[in-house]
Protein backbone atom coordinates (compact mmCIF):
# COMPACT_ATOMS: atom_id res chain seq x y z
CA UNK A 1 0.00 0.00 0.00
CA UNK A 2 2.94 2.28 0.53
CA UNK A 3 3.11 2.81 -3.24
CA UNK A 4 -0.30 4.57 -3.16
CA UNK A 5 0.49 8.06 -1.92
CA UNK A 6 -2.10 10.65 -1.01
CA UNK A 7 -2.17 12.25 -4.43
CA UNK A 8 -2.65 8.90 -6.11
CA UNK A 9 -5.35 8.02 -3.64
CA UNK A 10 -7.27 11.21 -4.46
CA UNK A 11 -6.97 10.47 -8.16
CA UNK A 12 -8.03 6.86 -7.62
CA UNK A 13 -11.08 8.01 -5.66
CA UNK A 14 -12.16 10.40 -8.37
CA UNK A 15 -11.74 7.75 -11.02
CA UNK A 16 -13.62 5.13 -9.01
CA UNK A 17 -16.41 7.34 -7.71
CA UNK A 18 -17.25 9.90 -10.36
CA UNK A 19 -18.12 13.40 -9.16
CA UNK A 20 -21.71 14.52 -9.67
CA UNK A 21 -21.79 17.29 -12.24
CA UNK A 22 -24.72 19.68 -12.52
CA UNK A 23 -27.35 17.59 -10.77
CA UNK A 24 -30.82 18.53 -12.00
CA UNK A 25 -33.93 18.20 -9.93
CA UNK A 26 -36.36 16.58 -12.35
CA UNK A 27 -39.61 17.64 -10.71
CA UNK A 28 -41.09 20.07 -8.25
CA UNK A 29 -40.99 18.69 -4.71
CA UNK A 30 -43.57 21.10 -3.30
CA UNK A 31 -46.48 18.57 -3.52
CA UNK A 32 -44.41 16.14 -1.41
CA UNK A 33 -43.59 18.94 0.98
CA UNK A 34 -47.29 19.70 1.39
CA UNK A 35 -47.96 16.02 2.09
CA UNK A 36 -45.24 16.07 4.72
CA UNK A 37 -46.71 19.18 6.30
CA UNK A 38 -50.14 17.52 6.40
CA UNK A 39 -48.67 14.49 8.15
CA UNK A 40 -47.43 16.53 11.07
CA UNK A 41 -47.50 14.18 14.03
CA UNK A 42 -49.95 15.14 16.73
CA UNK A 43 -47.98 16.35 19.73
CA UNK A 44 -47.32 13.31 21.87
CA UNK A 45 -47.96 13.49 25.56
CA UNK A 46 -44.85 12.32 27.44
CA UNK A 47 -45.26 9.15 29.52
CA UNK A 48 -44.54 10.95 32.80
CA UNK A 49 -47.50 13.26 32.16
CA UNK A 50 -49.69 10.16 31.98
CA UNK A 51 -48.16 8.92 35.26
CA UNK A 52 -48.89 12.26 36.93
CA UNK A 53 -52.47 12.20 35.65
CA UNK A 54 -52.90 8.64 36.95
CA UNK A 55 -51.50 9.65 40.35
CA UNK A 56 -53.85 12.60 40.50
CA UNK A 57 -56.79 10.37 39.57
CA UNK A 58 -55.79 7.87 42.26
CA UNK A 59 -55.56 10.65 44.88
CA UNK A 60 -59.01 11.92 43.94
CA UNK A 61 -60.42 8.38 44.05
CA UNK A 62 -58.93 7.27 47.36
CA UNK A 63 -58.80 10.64 49.13
CA UNK A 64 -61.86 12.59 47.93
CA UNK A 65 -61.25 15.07 50.75
CA UNK A 66 -58.24 16.31 48.79
CA UNK A 67 -60.40 17.48 45.87
CA UNK A 68 -61.29 20.90 47.33
CA UNK A 69 -57.62 21.49 48.18
CA UNK A 70 -56.58 20.55 44.64
CA UNK A 71 -59.28 22.79 43.17
CA UNK A 72 -58.07 25.63 45.38
CA UNK A 73 -54.54 25.27 43.96
CA UNK A 74 -55.81 25.16 40.36
Amino acid at each position, binding site marked *: *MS*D*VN*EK*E*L*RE*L*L*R*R*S*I*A*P*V*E*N*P*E*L*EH*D*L*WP*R*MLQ*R*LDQQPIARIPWFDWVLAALLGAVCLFFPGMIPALLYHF
Partner: protein
Amino acid sequence: MELLERFAAGDLEAFETLFRLHQKEVYGWIVHIVRDSGIAEDLTVETFWRIYRSRARFDPHGNFNGWARRIATNAALDHLRRSRNETELPEELPAAPQPDPAIASETRLCVRNAFEALPAKYRLVAVLALIEEEPYENIAAAAGISVALVKVRVFRAVRMLRKRLAALNFSGGTKL
Protein backbone atom coordinates in the same frame (compact mmCIF):
# COMPACT_ATOMS: atom_id res chain seq x y z
CA MET B 1 -43.10 42.62 5.43
CA GLU B 2 -40.11 40.95 3.85
CA LEU B 3 -40.30 37.35 2.63
CA LEU B 4 -37.93 36.03 5.30
CA GLU B 5 -39.79 37.86 8.04
CA ARG B 6 -43.10 36.43 6.86
CA PHE B 7 -41.52 32.96 6.76
CA ALA B 8 -40.16 33.34 10.30
CA ALA B 9 -43.62 34.43 11.40
CA GLY B 10 -45.07 31.17 10.03
CA ASP B 11 -46.55 32.34 6.74
CA LEU B 12 -47.01 29.20 4.59
CA GLU B 13 -47.04 31.15 1.33
CA ALA B 14 -43.67 32.69 2.20
CA PHE B 15 -42.37 29.20 2.97
CA GLU B 16 -43.65 27.95 -0.39
CA THR B 17 -41.87 30.80 -2.17
CA LEU B 18 -38.62 30.01 -0.34
CA PHE B 19 -39.07 26.31 -1.06
CA ARG B 20 -39.47 26.91 -4.78
CA LEU B 21 -36.53 29.33 -4.81
CA HIS B 22 -34.12 27.02 -3.00
CA GLN B 23 -35.21 23.43 -3.62
CA LYS B 24 -32.86 22.92 -6.60
CA GLU B 25 -29.86 24.22 -4.73
CA VAL B 26 -30.59 22.17 -1.63
CA TYR B 27 -31.17 19.06 -3.75
CA GLY B 28 -27.93 19.69 -5.66
CA TRP B 29 -25.94 19.95 -2.45
CA ILE B 30 -27.47 16.82 -0.94
CA VAL B 31 -27.02 14.73 -4.07
CA HIS B 32 -23.29 15.52 -3.97
CA ILE B 33 -23.18 13.95 -0.53
CA VAL B 34 -25.52 10.96 -0.81
CA ARG B 35 -25.04 10.35 -4.56
CA ASP B 36 -28.53 8.98 -5.10
CA SER B 37 -31.21 11.12 -6.71
CA GLY B 38 -34.16 9.40 -4.98
CA ILE B 39 -32.62 9.67 -1.54
CA ALA B 40 -31.60 13.25 -2.27
CA GLU B 41 -35.22 14.12 -3.06
CA ASP B 42 -36.40 12.59 0.22
CA LEU B 43 -33.70 14.44 2.11
CA THR B 44 -34.57 17.72 0.39
CA VAL B 45 -38.13 17.40 1.71
CA GLU B 46 -36.74 16.41 5.12
CA THR B 47 -34.45 19.46 5.06
CA PHE B 48 -37.31 21.85 4.33
CA TRP B 49 -39.41 20.10 6.97
CA ARG B 50 -36.66 20.83 9.49
CA ILE B 51 -36.42 24.39 8.17
CA TYR B 52 -40.15 24.89 8.59
CA ARG B 53 -40.12 23.42 12.09
CA SER B 54 -37.33 25.72 13.25
CA ARG B 55 -38.55 28.85 11.47
CA ALA B 56 -39.02 30.66 14.78
CA ARG B 57 -35.29 30.36 15.46
CA PHE B 58 -34.34 31.82 12.07
CA ASP B 59 -33.06 35.38 12.03
CA PRO B 60 -34.86 37.09 9.10
CA HIS B 61 -31.81 39.30 8.61
CA GLY B 62 -29.56 36.27 8.32
CA ASN B 63 -28.46 34.20 5.35
CA PHE B 64 -31.20 31.73 4.39
CA ASN B 65 -28.99 29.94 1.87
CA GLY B 66 -26.28 29.21 4.40
CA TRP B 67 -28.81 28.15 7.02
CA ALA B 68 -30.59 25.83 4.56
CA ARG B 69 -27.31 24.30 3.42
CA ARG B 70 -26.29 23.61 6.99
CA ILE B 71 -29.59 21.91 7.76
CA ALA B 72 -29.31 19.95 4.50
CA THR B 73 -25.80 18.81 5.46
CA ASN B 74 -27.06 17.63 8.85
CA ALA B 75 -29.93 15.75 7.21
CA ALA B 76 -27.51 14.10 4.77
CA LEU B 77 -25.11 13.26 7.59
CA ASP B 78 -27.95 11.67 9.58
CA HIS B 79 -28.74 9.60 6.51
CA LEU B 80 -25.10 8.50 6.13
CA ARG B 81 -25.04 7.49 9.81
CA ARG B 82 -28.26 5.48 9.49
CA SER B 83 -27.32 3.78 6.27
CA ARG B 84 -23.62 3.27 6.71
CA ASN B 85 -23.87 -0.50 6.62
CA GLU B 86 -27.06 -0.78 4.65
CA THR B 87 -26.55 0.95 1.34
CA GLU B 88 -23.85 1.07 -1.22
CA LEU B 89 -22.95 3.92 -3.49
CA PRO B 90 -25.23 3.57 -6.51
CA GLU B 91 -23.55 2.38 -9.68
CA GLU B 92 -25.32 4.92 -11.83
CA LEU B 93 -26.54 8.40 -11.15
CA PRO B 94 -28.52 9.93 -14.00
CA ALA B 95 -26.80 13.31 -13.83
CA ALA B 96 -23.33 11.98 -13.18
CA PRO B 97 -20.65 10.86 -15.56
CA GLN B 98 -19.65 7.23 -15.31
CA PRO B 99 -16.46 6.32 -13.50
CA ASP B 100 -13.37 6.14 -15.65
CA PRO B 101 -13.85 3.02 -17.83
CA ALA B 102 -10.11 2.56 -17.98
CA ILE B 103 -10.04 1.66 -14.30
CA ALA B 104 -10.59 -2.03 -13.55
CA SER B 105 -13.93 -2.90 -11.99
CA GLU B 106 -12.11 -4.82 -9.27
CA THR B 107 -10.15 -1.71 -8.38
CA ARG B 108 -13.30 0.39 -8.39
CA LEU B 109 -15.07 -2.06 -6.12
CA CYS B 110 -12.11 -2.11 -3.76
CA VAL B 111 -12.01 1.68 -3.51
CA ARG B 112 -15.78 1.97 -3.12
CA ASN B 113 -15.80 -0.62 -0.34
CA ALA B 114 -13.06 1.23 1.46
CA PHE B 115 -14.94 4.50 1.02
CA GLU B 116 -18.24 3.10 2.27
CA ALA B 117 -16.50 1.79 5.37
CA LEU B 118 -15.58 5.34 6.44
CA PRO B 119 -17.49 6.72 9.44
CA ALA B 120 -20.22 9.15 8.33
CA LYS B 121 -18.51 12.38 9.41
CA TYR B 122 -15.34 11.44 7.54
CA ARG B 123 -17.29 10.24 4.52
CA LEU B 124 -19.07 13.59 4.41
CA VAL B 125 -15.89 15.64 4.21
CA ALA B 126 -14.14 13.08 2.00
CA VAL B 127 -16.87 13.07 -0.62
CA LEU B 128 -17.06 16.86 -0.69
CA ALA B 129 -13.33 17.58 -0.53
CA LEU B 130 -11.76 14.66 -2.40
CA ILE B 131 -14.40 13.75 -4.97
CA GLU B 132 -16.46 16.91 -5.51
CA GLU B 133 -13.47 19.19 -4.81
CA GLU B 134 -15.53 21.69 -2.84
CA PRO B 135 -13.45 24.43 -1.18
CA TYR B 136 -12.74 23.67 2.48
CA GLU B 137 -14.44 26.94 3.49
CA ASN B 138 -17.73 25.81 1.93
CA ILE B 139 -17.52 22.42 3.63
CA ALA B 140 -16.74 24.03 6.98
CA ALA B 141 -19.68 26.44 6.70
CA ALA B 142 -22.08 23.69 5.65
CA ALA B 143 -20.97 21.26 8.36
CA GLY B 144 -20.78 23.91 11.06
CA ILE B 145 -17.14 23.18 11.84
CA SER B 146 -13.87 25.07 11.40
CA VAL B 147 -11.74 24.88 8.28
CA ALA B 148 -8.96 23.40 10.42
CA LEU B 149 -11.28 20.59 11.51
CA VAL B 150 -12.26 19.93 7.90
CA LYS B 151 -8.57 19.55 7.06
CA VAL B 152 -8.06 17.21 9.98
CA ARG B 153 -11.03 15.07 8.94
CA VAL B 154 -9.86 14.92 5.32
CA PHE B 155 -6.40 13.89 6.51
CA ARG B 156 -7.86 11.19 8.75
CA ALA B 157 -10.22 10.00 6.02
CA VAL B 158 -7.28 9.59 3.63
CA ARG B 159 -5.36 7.71 6.29
CA MET B 160 -8.32 5.43 6.98
CA LEU B 161 -8.79 4.80 3.28
CA ARG B 162 -5.14 3.87 2.89
CA LYS B 163 -5.34 1.48 5.84
CA ARG B 164 -8.53 -0.03 4.56
CA LEU B 165 -7.11 -0.48 1.08
CA ALA B 166 -4.01 -2.04 2.60
CA ALA B 167 -6.23 -4.43 4.55
CA LEU B 168 -7.93 -5.36 1.27
CA ASN B 169 -4.49 -6.16 -0.11
CA PHE B 170 -4.86 -3.37 -2.60
CA SER B 171 -1.87 -2.13 -4.53
CA GLY B 172 -2.47 0.97 -6.61
CA GLY B 173 0.34 0.16 -8.96
CA THR B 174 -0.78 -3.33 -9.89
CA LYS B 175 -4.51 -2.90 -10.19
CA LEU B 176 -4.70 0.30 -12.14
